[in-house]
Protein backbone atom coordinates (compact mmCIF):
# COMPACT_ATOMS: atom_id res chain seq x y z
CA UNK A 1 0.00 0.00 0.00
CA UNK A 2 1.09 3.54 -0.63
CA UNK A 3 -0.19 6.04 1.92
CA UNK A 4 0.29 9.79 1.77
CA UNK A 5 0.28 12.18 4.72
CA UNK A 6 -0.39 15.86 4.03
CA UNK A 7 1.53 17.90 6.56
CA UNK A 8 1.53 21.65 7.01
CA UNK A 9 3.97 23.79 8.92
CA UNK A 10 2.23 26.50 10.96
CA UNK A 11 3.00 29.15 13.59
CA UNK A 12 2.83 27.47 17.01
CA UNK A 13 -0.83 27.73 18.12
CA UNK A 14 0.32 27.73 21.74
CA UNK A 15 1.89 31.15 21.17
CA UNK A 16 0.63 33.24 24.09
CA UNK A 17 -2.01 35.77 22.96
CA UNK A 18 0.30 38.57 24.13
CA UNK A 19 2.95 37.47 21.59
CA UNK A 20 0.45 37.01 18.76
CA UNK A 21 0.82 39.90 16.29
CA UNK A 22 -0.66 40.72 12.92
CA UNK A 23 0.63 42.84 10.07
CA UNK A 24 -2.59 44.47 8.92
CA UNK A 25 -0.96 45.85 5.77
CA UNK A 26 -0.28 42.35 4.42
CA UNK A 27 -3.04 40.50 6.29
CA UNK A 28 -0.52 38.10 7.70
CA UNK A 29 0.70 36.86 11.06
CA UNK A 30 4.05 38.20 12.24
CA UNK A 31 6.21 35.28 13.43
CA UNK A 32 6.58 35.53 17.21
CA UNK A 33 10.25 36.03 18.12
CA UNK A 34 11.83 32.92 19.61
CA UNK A 35 8.86 30.66 18.83
CA UNK A 36 9.56 28.19 16.02
CA UNK A 37 6.88 27.10 13.59
CA UNK A 38 5.64 23.56 14.15
CA UNK A 39 4.01 20.66 12.35
CA UNK A 40 0.25 21.28 12.66
CA UNK A 41 -0.74 18.93 15.50
CA UNK A 42 -3.58 17.18 13.69
CA UNK A 43 -1.15 16.37 10.85
CA UNK A 44 1.15 14.59 13.31
CA UNK A 45 -1.86 12.55 14.36
CA UNK A 46 -2.74 11.89 10.70
CA UNK A 47 0.83 10.60 10.27
CA UNK A 48 0.35 8.30 13.25
CA UNK A 49 -2.82 6.89 11.67
CA UNK A 50 -1.03 6.25 8.36
CA UNK A 51 2.01 4.67 10.03
CA UNK A 52 -0.14 2.25 12.02
CA UNK A 53 -1.75 1.03 8.80
CA UNK A 54 1.63 0.71 7.12
CA UNK A 55 2.91 -1.35 10.05
CA UNK A 56 -0.11 -3.63 9.92
CA UNK A 57 0.50 -4.22 6.21
CA UNK A 58 4.17 -5.15 6.29
CA UNK A 59 7.22 -4.34 4.25
CA UNK A 60 5.85 -3.56 0.83
CA UNK A 61 3.84 -0.64 2.19
CA UNK A 62 5.14 2.88 2.29
CA UNK A 63 4.23 6.30 3.60
CA UNK A 64 5.07 9.51 1.74
CA UNK A 65 4.74 12.85 3.49
CA UNK A 66 3.87 15.87 1.37
CA UNK A 67 4.01 19.49 2.40
CA UNK A 68 3.34 22.58 0.38
CA UNK A 69 5.23 25.50 1.80
CA UNK A 70 8.45 27.42 2.08
CA UNK A 71 11.84 25.75 2.40
CA UNK A 72 11.40 25.86 6.20
CA UNK A 73 8.58 23.30 5.82
CA UNK A 74 11.32 20.69 5.43
CA UNK A 75 11.39 20.63 9.23
CA UNK A 76 7.75 19.46 9.30
CA UNK A 77 8.55 16.84 6.64
CA UNK A 78 11.60 15.64 8.61
CA UNK A 79 9.48 15.26 11.72
CA UNK A 80 7.08 12.89 9.94
CA UNK A 81 10.06 11.07 8.39
CA UNK A 82 11.49 10.63 11.90
CA UNK A 83 8.17 9.17 12.99
CA UNK A 84 8.68 6.50 10.34
CA UNK A 85 7.50 7.82 6.97
CA UNK A 86 9.65 6.65 4.06
CA UNK A 87 9.89 9.59 1.70
CA UNK A 88 9.20 13.29 1.69
CA UNK A 89 7.90 15.68 -0.95
CA UNK A 90 8.20 19.45 -0.67
CA UNK A 91 5.95 21.50 -2.94
CA UNK A 92 7.73 24.80 -3.12
CA UNK A 93 7.26 27.40 -5.83
CA UNK A 94 6.67 31.16 -5.80
CA UNK A 95 3.59 30.41 -7.88
CA UNK A 96 2.03 28.53 -4.93
CA UNK A 97 2.19 31.51 -2.59
CA UNK A 98 -0.82 33.40 -1.34
CA UNK A 99 -3.23 30.63 -2.27
CA UNK A 100 -6.49 29.56 -0.62
CA UNK A 101 -7.80 26.14 0.38
CA UNK A 102 -8.85 25.43 -3.20
CA UNK A 103 -5.44 26.10 -4.76
CA UNK A 104 -3.75 24.21 -1.92
CA UNK A 105 -5.89 21.16 -2.66
CA UNK A 106 -5.20 21.57 -6.36
CA UNK A 107 -1.44 21.51 -5.86
CA UNK A 108 -1.58 18.60 -3.40
CA UNK A 109 -3.84 16.64 -5.79
CA UNK A 110 -1.42 17.25 -8.65
CA UNK A 111 1.42 15.92 -6.50
CA UNK A 112 -0.60 12.85 -5.52
CA UNK A 113 -1.44 12.18 -9.16
CA UNK A 114 2.24 12.63 -9.98
CA UNK A 115 3.17 9.93 -7.44
CA UNK A 116 0.60 7.81 -9.21
CA UNK A 117 0.02 4.74 -7.09
CA UNK A 118 -1.49 6.21 -3.93
CA UNK A 119 -4.17 4.22 -2.07
CA UNK A 120 -5.11 6.61 0.69
CA UNK A 121 -4.35 10.14 1.85
CA UNK A 122 -4.33 11.25 5.47
CA UNK A 123 -4.90 14.88 6.42
CA UNK A 124 -5.47 16.67 9.67
CA UNK A 125 -9.07 17.62 10.47
CA UNK A 126 -7.97 21.24 10.14
CA UNK A 127 -4.72 23.14 9.95
CA UNK A 128 -4.30 24.81 13.33
CA UNK A 129 -3.41 28.18 11.80
CA UNK A 130 -6.37 29.27 9.66
CA UNK A 131 -8.63 26.55 11.15
CA UNK A 132 -10.46 26.03 7.85
CA UNK A 133 -10.86 22.28 7.82
CA UNK A 134 -11.52 21.83 4.12
CA UNK A 135 -8.37 20.87 2.22
CA UNK A 136 -8.92 17.12 2.81
CA UNK A 137 -12.41 17.25 1.35
CA UNK A 138 -11.40 19.47 -1.57
CA UNK A 139 -8.63 16.99 -2.28
CA UNK A 140 -11.13 14.12 -2.39
CA UNK A 141 -13.26 16.12 -4.85
CA UNK A 142 -10.22 17.03 -6.98
CA UNK A 143 -9.19 13.37 -7.12
CA UNK A 144 -12.78 12.08 -7.24
CA UNK A 145 -12.04 9.79 -4.31
CA UNK A 146 -14.19 8.81 -1.36
CA UNK A 147 -13.64 10.60 1.94
CA UNK A 148 -14.26 10.19 5.64
CA UNK A 149 -13.60 13.11 7.95
CA UNK A 150 -12.83 13.66 11.65
CA UNK A 151 -11.53 10.17 12.37
CA UNK A 152 -11.00 8.82 15.87
CA UNK A 153 -9.90 5.42 14.58
CA UNK A 154 -8.89 3.98 11.20
CA UNK A 155 -8.54 0.36 10.12
CA UNK A 156 -7.75 -1.27 6.82
CA UNK A 157 -8.88 -4.61 5.47
CA UNK A 158 -9.98 -6.19 2.18
CA UNK A 159 -9.59 -3.10 0.03
CA UNK A 160 -11.79 -1.05 2.33
CA UNK A 161 -10.96 1.38 5.01
CA UNK A 162 -13.13 1.59 8.08
CA UNK A 163 -13.18 4.85 9.94
CA UNK A 164 -14.59 5.60 13.32
CA UNK A 165 -15.81 9.20 13.18
CA UNK A 166 -16.54 11.71 15.89
CA UNK A 167 -20.09 13.08 15.63
CA UNK A 168 -21.72 15.85 17.63
CA UNK A 169 -23.15 13.39 20.12
CA UNK A 170 -21.38 10.11 19.68
CA UNK A 171 -19.43 8.15 17.09
CA UNK A 172 -20.08 6.40 13.82
CA UNK A 173 -18.13 3.76 11.97
CA UNK A 174 -18.17 4.03 8.20
CA UNK A 175 -16.64 1.79 5.61
CA UNK A 176 -15.39 3.32 2.44
CA UNK A 177 -13.68 2.07 -0.70
CA UNK A 178 -10.12 2.95 -1.61
CA UNK A 179 -8.70 5.22 -2.82
CA UNK A 180 -9.92 7.59 -0.15
CA UNK A 181 -9.02 10.68 1.85
CA UNK A 182 -9.28 10.48 5.64
CA UNK A 183 -9.01 13.46 7.97
CA UNK A 184 -7.91 12.72 11.52
CA UNK A 185 -8.91 14.38 14.79
CA UNK A 186 -7.26 14.60 18.22
CA UNK A 187 -9.57 11.88 19.60
CA UNK A 188 -7.33 9.43 17.69
CA UNK A 189 -4.68 9.84 20.38
CA UNK A 190 -1.14 11.16 20.61
CA UNK A 191 1.35 10.67 17.78
CA UNK A 192 4.55 8.75 18.52
CA UNK A 193 7.56 10.71 19.66
CA UNK A 194 10.65 10.03 17.52
CA UNK A 195 13.84 9.05 19.37
CA UNK A 196 17.33 10.26 18.48
CA UNK A 197 18.28 7.33 16.19
CA UNK A 198 15.07 7.84 14.23
CA UNK A 199 15.73 11.55 13.93
CA UNK A 200 19.24 10.73 12.64
CA UNK A 201 17.82 8.21 10.18
CA UNK A 202 15.28 10.75 8.95
CA UNK A 203 18.11 13.09 7.97
CA UNK A 204 19.17 10.49 5.38
CA UNK A 205 15.74 9.99 3.82
CA UNK A 206 15.05 11.72 0.51
CA UNK A 207 12.93 14.81 0.21
CA UNK A 208 12.00 15.52 -3.40
CA UNK A 209 11.02 19.01 -4.39
CA UNK A 210 8.42 19.83 -7.03
CA UNK A 211 7.30 23.13 -8.49
CA UNK A 212 4.35 24.05 -10.69
CA UNK A 213 5.96 22.97 -13.97
CA UNK A 214 7.01 19.55 -12.55
CA UNK A 215 3.36 18.92 -11.76
CA UNK A 216 2.01 20.26 -15.05
CA UNK A 217 0.29 23.16 -13.29
CA UNK A 218 -0.26 26.52 -14.94
CA UNK A 219 1.14 29.09 -12.47
CA UNK A 220 -1.89 31.34 -13.02
CA UNK A 221 -4.23 28.57 -11.80
CA UNK A 222 -2.56 28.28 -8.40
CA UNK A 223 -1.41 30.55 -5.57
CA UNK A 224 -2.91 34.02 -5.25
CA UNK A 225 -3.95 34.24 -8.90
CA UNK A 226 -5.95 30.99 -8.81
CA UNK A 227 -7.63 31.71 -5.48
CA UNK A 228 -11.37 32.01 -5.10
CA UNK A 229 -11.40 33.24 -1.53
CA UNK A 230 -9.53 36.41 -0.59
CA UNK A 231 -8.61 37.61 2.86
CA UNK A 232 -9.62 41.27 2.82
CA UNK A 233 -8.91 42.02 6.43
CA UNK A 234 -7.11 40.22 9.26
CA UNK A 235 -7.32 41.71 12.74
CA UNK A 236 -7.13 40.93 16.44
CA UNK A 237 -10.54 41.06 18.08
CA UNK A 238 -11.00 43.22 21.15
CA UNK A 239 -11.74 41.53 24.44
CA UNK A 240 -13.24 43.60 27.21
CA UNK A 241 -11.38 42.70 30.34
CA UNK A 242 -12.96 44.26 33.40
CA UNK A 243 -12.59 41.31 35.72
CA UNK A 244 -13.54 41.86 39.31
CA UNK A 245 -11.75 39.54 41.73
CA UNK A 246 -13.64 38.34 44.79
CA UNK A 247 -12.00 39.55 47.96
CA UNK A 248 -12.06 37.71 51.26
CA UNK A 249 -9.74 36.25 53.83
CA UNK A 250 -10.98 32.73 53.38
CA UNK A 251 -12.23 30.69 50.41
CA UNK A 252 -15.60 30.71 52.18
CA UNK A 253 -15.76 34.52 52.09
CA UNK A 254 -14.67 34.64 48.46
CA UNK A 255 -17.24 32.03 47.48
CA UNK A 256 -19.96 33.87 49.39
CA UNK A 257 -19.03 37.12 47.63
CA UNK A 258 -19.25 35.41 44.25
CA UNK A 259 -22.63 33.84 45.00
CA UNK A 260 -23.92 37.28 46.04
CA UNK A 261 -22.76 38.84 42.77
CA UNK A 262 -24.30 36.05 40.73
CA UNK A 263 -27.58 36.40 42.59
CA UNK A 264 -27.60 40.17 42.18
CA UNK A 265 -27.04 39.69 38.43
CA UNK A 266 -29.88 37.10 38.42
CA UNK A 267 -27.53 34.50 36.96
CA UNK A 268 -28.38 31.82 39.52
Amino acid sequence: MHLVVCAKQIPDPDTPPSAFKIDEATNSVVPAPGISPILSQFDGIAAEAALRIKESQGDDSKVTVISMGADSARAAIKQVLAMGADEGVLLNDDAFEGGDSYTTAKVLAAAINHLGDVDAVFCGRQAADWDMGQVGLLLSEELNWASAIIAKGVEYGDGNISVQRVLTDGFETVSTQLPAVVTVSNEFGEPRYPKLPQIMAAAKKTVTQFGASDLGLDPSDVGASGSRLKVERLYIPETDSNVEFMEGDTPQEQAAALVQKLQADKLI
Partner: protein
Amino acid sequence: MAQNILVIGELDDGAASTTTLELLAGASSLSDGGSVGVTLLGAGASSAATSCVGATVAYVNDDSEYDSFRGDQWLNAIAGAVESSSPDVVLIAQSIVGREIGPRLSHRLGTAVAMDCVSISNDGGATKATRPCFGGNAMATYGFETSPAIATVRAKSFEILESGSGPATTEELPGAGESRTAIIATEEATSEGLQIQDAPVVVCGGRGLGEAEAFSQIEEIAAAIGADKAAVGASRAAVDLGWYPPSQQVGLTGKVVTPDLYLAVAVSGASQHMAGCSGSKTIVGINRDEEANIWSFSRYGIIGDYKQIVPALIEELKKAAGN
Protein backbone atom coordinates in the same frame (compact mmCIF):
# COMPACT_ATOMS: atom_id res chain seq x y z
CA MET B 1 -28.91 44.69 -3.49
CA ALA B 2 -31.26 41.71 -3.46
CA GLN B 3 -29.60 38.33 -3.18
CA ASN B 4 -31.00 34.82 -3.43
CA ILE B 5 -29.97 32.76 -0.43
CA LEU B 6 -30.12 28.99 -0.03
CA VAL B 7 -29.96 27.51 3.46
CA ILE B 8 -28.96 23.85 3.78
CA GLY B 9 -31.21 22.87 6.66
CA GLU B 10 -30.95 19.97 9.07
CA LEU B 11 -33.56 18.03 11.00
CA ASP B 12 -33.35 17.36 14.69
CA ASP B 13 -35.86 14.73 15.82
CA GLY B 14 -38.08 15.49 12.83
CA ALA B 15 -38.11 19.28 13.36
CA ALA B 16 -35.96 21.95 11.74
CA SER B 17 -32.85 22.26 13.92
CA THR B 18 -32.21 25.40 15.96
CA THR B 19 -29.24 26.31 13.76
CA THR B 20 -31.39 25.96 10.65
CA LEU B 21 -33.77 28.55 12.10
CA GLU B 22 -30.82 30.77 13.00
CA LEU B 23 -29.48 30.54 9.43
CA LEU B 24 -32.92 31.43 8.06
CA ALA B 25 -32.97 34.55 10.23
CA GLY B 26 -29.53 35.50 8.90
CA ALA B 27 -30.63 34.69 5.36
CA SER B 28 -33.73 36.87 5.47
CA SER B 29 -31.76 39.92 6.51
CA LEU B 30 -29.04 39.23 3.91
CA SER B 31 -31.47 38.57 1.08
CA ASP B 32 -32.69 42.17 0.92
CA GLY B 33 -35.82 41.13 -0.91
CA GLY B 34 -34.31 38.15 -2.76
CA SER B 35 -35.56 34.60 -2.28
CA VAL B 36 -34.67 32.47 0.73
CA GLY B 37 -34.70 28.74 0.05
CA VAL B 38 -34.23 25.98 2.59
CA THR B 39 -33.44 22.32 1.92
CA LEU B 40 -34.62 19.67 4.38
CA LEU B 41 -33.86 15.99 3.93
CA GLY B 42 -35.13 13.02 5.89
CA ALA B 43 -38.26 11.74 7.63
CA GLY B 44 -40.58 14.59 8.54
CA ALA B 45 -38.93 17.10 6.18
CA SER B 46 -42.14 18.34 4.54
CA SER B 47 -43.91 18.99 7.80
CA ALA B 48 -40.80 20.55 9.39
CA ALA B 49 -40.58 22.91 6.40
CA THR B 50 -43.80 24.68 7.44
CA SER B 51 -42.05 25.97 10.59
CA CYS B 52 -39.16 27.47 8.63
CA VAL B 53 -39.89 31.11 9.34
CA GLY B 54 -37.97 33.37 6.97
CA ALA B 55 -37.89 30.92 4.05
CA THR B 56 -39.80 31.74 0.87
CA VAL B 57 -39.37 28.31 -0.69
CA ALA B 58 -38.64 24.88 0.74
CA TYR B 59 -36.89 22.01 -1.06
CA VAL B 60 -37.70 18.75 0.66
CA ASN B 61 -37.55 15.01 0.53
CA ASP B 62 -38.96 12.80 3.29
CA ASP B 63 -36.87 9.74 2.37
CA SER B 64 -35.69 8.29 5.70
CA GLU B 65 -32.47 7.12 3.95
CA TYR B 66 -31.39 10.72 4.49
CA ASP B 67 -31.75 10.39 8.27
CA SER B 68 -28.17 9.25 8.58
CA PHE B 69 -25.99 11.75 6.84
CA ARG B 70 -23.98 10.58 3.85
CA GLY B 71 -22.30 13.38 1.95
CA ASP B 72 -22.67 12.05 -1.58
CA GLN B 73 -26.44 11.46 -1.24
CA TRP B 74 -27.01 14.91 0.24
CA LEU B 75 -24.88 16.59 -2.43
CA ASN B 76 -26.98 15.09 -5.20
CA ALA B 77 -30.17 16.37 -3.62
CA ILE B 78 -28.71 19.79 -2.87
CA ALA B 79 -27.54 20.12 -6.47
CA GLY B 80 -31.23 20.07 -7.44
CA ALA B 81 -32.08 22.89 -5.03
CA VAL B 82 -29.10 24.93 -6.24
CA GLU B 83 -30.23 24.54 -9.83
CA SER B 84 -33.76 25.68 -9.18
CA SER B 85 -32.96 28.53 -6.75
CA SER B 86 -29.79 29.90 -8.41
CA PRO B 87 -28.44 31.24 -5.12
CA ASP B 88 -25.93 34.04 -4.69
CA VAL B 89 -25.15 32.75 -1.22
CA VAL B 90 -25.40 29.29 0.35
CA LEU B 91 -25.45 29.06 4.15
CA ILE B 92 -24.79 25.81 6.02
CA ALA B 93 -24.35 25.13 9.72
CA GLN B 94 -20.84 24.43 10.99
CA SER B 95 -22.02 20.94 11.96
CA ILE B 96 -21.05 17.42 10.98
CA VAL B 97 -23.13 18.03 7.85
CA GLY B 98 -21.72 21.47 7.08
CA ARG B 99 -18.10 20.50 7.67
CA GLU B 100 -18.44 17.99 4.83
CA ILE B 101 -21.03 19.59 2.52
CA GLY B 102 -19.44 23.06 2.57
CA PRO B 103 -16.13 22.13 0.93
CA ARG B 104 -17.54 19.46 -1.37
CA LEU B 105 -20.40 21.66 -2.63
CA SER B 106 -17.99 24.55 -3.21
CA HIS B 107 -15.83 22.33 -5.37
CA ARG B 108 -18.73 20.98 -7.39
CA LEU B 109 -20.06 24.48 -8.04
CA GLY B 110 -16.61 25.78 -8.99
CA THR B 111 -16.62 28.23 -6.13
CA ALA B 112 -15.30 28.61 -2.57
CA VAL B 113 -16.48 28.20 1.00
CA ALA B 114 -15.49 30.09 4.12
CA MET B 115 -15.78 27.71 7.09
CA ASP B 116 -17.00 28.45 10.60
CA CYS B 117 -18.10 32.04 9.99
CA VAL B 118 -19.64 34.19 12.70
CA SER B 119 -20.95 36.98 10.52
CA ILE B 120 -21.95 37.39 6.90
CA SER B 121 -22.75 40.66 5.22
CA ASN B 122 -24.17 41.85 1.94
CA ASP B 123 -21.92 44.69 0.87
CA GLY B 124 -23.86 46.13 -2.07
CA GLY B 125 -24.32 42.65 -3.51
CA ALA B 126 -20.83 41.40 -2.62
CA THR B 127 -20.80 38.82 0.15
CA LYS B 128 -18.30 39.22 2.98
CA ALA B 129 -17.76 36.47 5.51
CA THR B 130 -15.98 36.97 8.82
CA ARG B 131 -14.53 34.09 10.79
CA PRO B 132 -12.21 33.52 13.70
CA CYS B 133 -8.84 31.97 12.82
CA PHE B 134 -5.53 31.24 14.53
CA GLY B 135 -7.47 29.52 17.27
CA GLY B 136 -9.55 32.63 17.93
CA ASN B 137 -6.55 34.93 18.27
CA ALA B 138 -7.54 36.68 15.05
CA MET B 139 -10.56 37.41 12.88
CA ALA B 140 -10.50 37.41 9.09
CA THR B 141 -12.96 38.93 6.65
CA TYR B 142 -13.12 37.26 3.27
CA GLY B 143 -14.45 38.24 -0.12
CA PHE B 144 -15.37 35.78 -2.88
CA GLU B 145 -13.99 35.81 -6.43
CA THR B 146 -16.59 33.26 -7.56
CA SER B 147 -20.32 32.71 -7.09
CA PRO B 148 -22.23 31.47 -5.19
CA ALA B 149 -20.49 32.49 -1.99
CA ILE B 150 -20.72 29.56 0.41
CA ALA B 151 -20.31 29.86 4.16
CA THR B 152 -20.65 27.46 7.02
CA VAL B 153 -21.84 29.35 10.07
CA ARG B 154 -21.07 28.80 13.73
CA ALA B 155 -24.06 28.09 15.99
CA LYS B 156 -25.68 31.13 17.66
CA SER B 157 -24.33 33.60 15.13
CA PHE B 158 -27.85 34.83 14.29
CA GLU B 159 -30.95 35.21 16.44
CA ILE B 160 -34.00 33.20 15.45
CA LEU B 161 -36.91 35.23 14.02
CA GLU B 162 -39.75 35.28 16.55
CA SER B 163 -42.49 35.78 13.99
CA GLY B 164 -43.01 35.75 10.26
CA SER B 165 -44.28 33.40 7.62
CA GLY B 166 -43.02 30.05 6.44
CA PRO B 167 -42.29 29.04 2.84
CA ALA B 168 -45.02 29.81 0.32
CA THR B 169 -43.98 27.03 -2.02
CA THR B 170 -42.47 23.61 -1.58
CA GLU B 171 -40.51 21.69 -4.19
CA GLU B 172 -39.67 18.01 -4.06
CA LEU B 173 -36.00 16.95 -4.24
CA PRO B 174 -35.05 13.45 -5.44
CA GLY B 175 -34.80 10.59 -2.95
CA ALA B 176 -31.45 9.26 -1.80
CA GLY B 177 -29.46 7.22 -4.32
CA GLU B 178 -26.37 5.09 -3.85
CA SER B 179 -23.53 6.03 -1.52
CA ARG B 180 -19.84 5.19 -1.60
CA THR B 181 -19.79 5.02 2.17
CA ALA B 182 -21.63 2.49 4.27
CA ILE B 183 -22.43 3.25 7.89
CA ILE B 184 -21.53 0.14 9.84
CA ALA B 185 -22.24 1.21 13.39
CA THR B 186 -23.32 4.22 15.40
CA GLU B 187 -22.82 4.87 19.07
CA GLU B 188 -24.73 7.62 20.83
CA ALA B 189 -22.96 9.49 23.58
CA THR B 190 -24.90 9.14 26.78
CA SER B 191 -25.59 12.74 27.59
CA GLU B 192 -28.92 12.67 29.33
CA GLY B 193 -30.93 15.61 30.54
CA LEU B 194 -29.90 19.16 29.81
CA GLN B 195 -27.51 19.58 26.84
CA ILE B 196 -24.63 22.02 27.24
CA GLN B 197 -25.70 23.97 24.13
CA ASP B 198 -29.12 24.66 25.71
CA ALA B 199 -28.19 25.15 29.37
CA PRO B 200 -28.43 28.69 30.83
CA VAL B 201 -25.46 27.84 33.04
CA VAL B 202 -22.38 25.83 32.02
CA VAL B 203 -19.81 24.77 34.60
CA CYS B 204 -16.59 23.72 32.89
CA GLY B 205 -13.64 21.80 34.28
CA GLY B 206 -10.09 21.93 32.94
CA ARG B 207 -6.76 20.15 33.18
CA GLY B 208 -5.94 22.08 36.34
CA LEU B 209 -8.38 19.81 38.20
CA GLY B 210 -5.53 17.32 38.16
CA GLU B 211 -7.63 14.15 38.12
CA ALA B 212 -10.77 12.68 36.60
CA GLU B 213 -12.39 12.27 40.01
CA ALA B 214 -12.46 16.03 40.51
CA PHE B 215 -15.16 16.29 37.85
CA SER B 216 -17.59 15.01 40.46
CA GLN B 217 -17.06 18.35 42.22
CA ILE B 218 -17.82 20.19 38.98
CA GLU B 219 -21.00 18.12 38.73
CA GLU B 220 -21.80 19.07 42.32
CA ILE B 221 -21.55 22.78 41.46
CA ALA B 222 -23.96 22.21 38.58
CA ALA B 223 -26.33 20.24 40.81
CA ALA B 224 -26.27 22.98 43.45
CA ILE B 225 -27.25 25.54 40.79
CA GLY B 226 -29.99 23.20 39.58
CA ALA B 227 -30.11 20.15 37.32
CA ASP B 228 -32.65 21.98 35.13
CA LYS B 229 -30.33 25.00 34.73
CA ALA B 230 -26.72 23.91 34.74
CA ALA B 231 -24.76 21.45 32.59
CA VAL B 232 -21.13 20.36 32.80
CA GLY B 233 -18.52 20.98 30.13
CA ALA B 234 -14.81 20.21 29.83
CA SER B 235 -11.74 21.64 28.13
CA ARG B 236 -10.05 19.62 25.43
CA ALA B 237 -7.07 18.99 27.65
CA ALA B 238 -9.42 17.34 30.17
CA VAL B 239 -11.21 15.38 27.43
CA ASP B 240 -7.94 14.23 25.86
CA LEU B 241 -6.87 12.91 29.25
CA GLY B 242 -10.04 10.82 29.29
CA TRP B 243 -11.48 12.67 32.28
CA TYR B 244 -14.73 13.63 30.58
CA PRO B 245 -16.57 12.53 27.38
CA PRO B 246 -15.84 14.30 24.04
CA SER B 247 -19.54 15.20 23.72
CA GLN B 248 -18.99 17.70 26.55
CA GLN B 249 -15.96 19.43 25.08
CA VAL B 250 -16.30 23.19 24.70
CA GLY B 251 -14.24 25.04 22.13
CA LEU B 252 -13.06 25.35 18.58
CA THR B 253 -13.11 21.61 17.98
CA GLY B 254 -15.88 20.97 20.49
CA LYS B 255 -19.21 22.64 21.12
CA VAL B 256 -20.12 26.30 21.02
CA VAL B 257 -22.07 27.42 24.04
CA THR B 258 -23.52 30.84 24.89
CA PRO B 259 -25.05 30.46 28.35
CA ASP B 260 -25.94 33.35 30.64
CA LEU B 261 -23.28 32.11 33.04
CA TYR B 262 -20.09 30.23 32.15
CA LEU B 263 -18.07 29.12 35.14
CA ALA B 264 -14.60 27.92 34.19
CA VAL B 265 -12.79 25.99 36.90
CA ALA B 266 -9.05 25.34 36.45
CA VAL B 267 -9.31 26.24 32.77
CA SER B 268 -6.53 28.49 31.44
CA GLY B 269 -8.74 30.19 28.84
CA ALA B 270 -6.69 29.31 25.74
CA SER B 271 -8.03 31.05 22.65
CA GLN B 272 -9.18 27.72 21.18
CA HIS B 273 -11.21 27.08 24.31
CA MET B 274 -12.68 30.57 24.39
CA ALA B 275 -13.75 30.10 20.77
CA GLY B 276 -16.48 27.87 22.19
CA CYS B 277 -17.68 30.05 25.05
CA SER B 278 -16.68 33.69 24.56
CA GLY B 279 -20.26 34.49 23.52
CA SER B 280 -21.48 33.69 27.05
CA LYS B 281 -23.15 36.62 28.82
CA THR B 282 -21.06 36.36 31.99
CA ILE B 283 -17.84 34.40 32.32
CA VAL B 284 -16.48 33.58 35.77
CA GLY B 285 -13.10 31.99 36.41
CA ILE B 286 -11.66 30.04 39.28
CA ASN B 287 -7.93 29.74 38.75
CA ARG B 288 -4.82 29.90 40.87
CA ASP B 289 -2.84 31.77 38.22
CA GLU B 290 -3.16 35.55 38.42
CA GLU B 291 -1.95 35.79 34.84
CA ALA B 292 -4.33 33.23 33.33
CA ASN B 293 -5.84 34.16 29.98
CA ILE B 294 -9.33 33.44 31.32
CA TRP B 295 -9.26 36.80 33.13
CA SER B 296 -9.26 38.64 29.80
CA PHE B 297 -12.77 37.31 29.27
CA SER B 298 -14.10 37.14 32.82
CA ARG B 299 -16.55 39.40 34.62
CA TYR B 300 -15.79 37.86 38.02
CA GLY B 301 -12.95 35.74 39.28
CA ILE B 302 -11.56 33.97 42.28
CA ILE B 303 -7.81 33.51 42.40
CA GLY B 304 -6.93 30.43 44.36
CA ASP B 305 -6.72 26.67 44.56
CA TYR B 306 -9.95 25.12 43.34
CA LYS B 307 -9.56 22.41 45.98
CA GLN B 308 -10.33 25.05 48.57
CA ILE B 309 -12.62 27.32 46.57
CA VAL B 310 -14.93 24.73 45.07
CA PRO B 311 -16.12 23.03 48.30
CA ALA B 312 -16.81 26.49 49.75
CA LEU B 313 -18.65 27.49 46.59
CA ILE B 314 -20.81 24.37 46.66
CA GLU B 315 -21.72 25.10 50.26
CA GLU B 316 -22.58 28.75 49.51
CA LEU B 317 -24.64 27.79 46.48
CA LYS B 318 -26.59 25.29 48.54
CA LYS B 319 -27.18 27.92 51.20
CA ALA B 320 -28.38 30.36 48.56
CA ALA B 321 -30.72 27.77 47.09
CA GLY B 322 -32.12 27.05 50.55
CA ASN B 323 -33.20 30.68 50.99
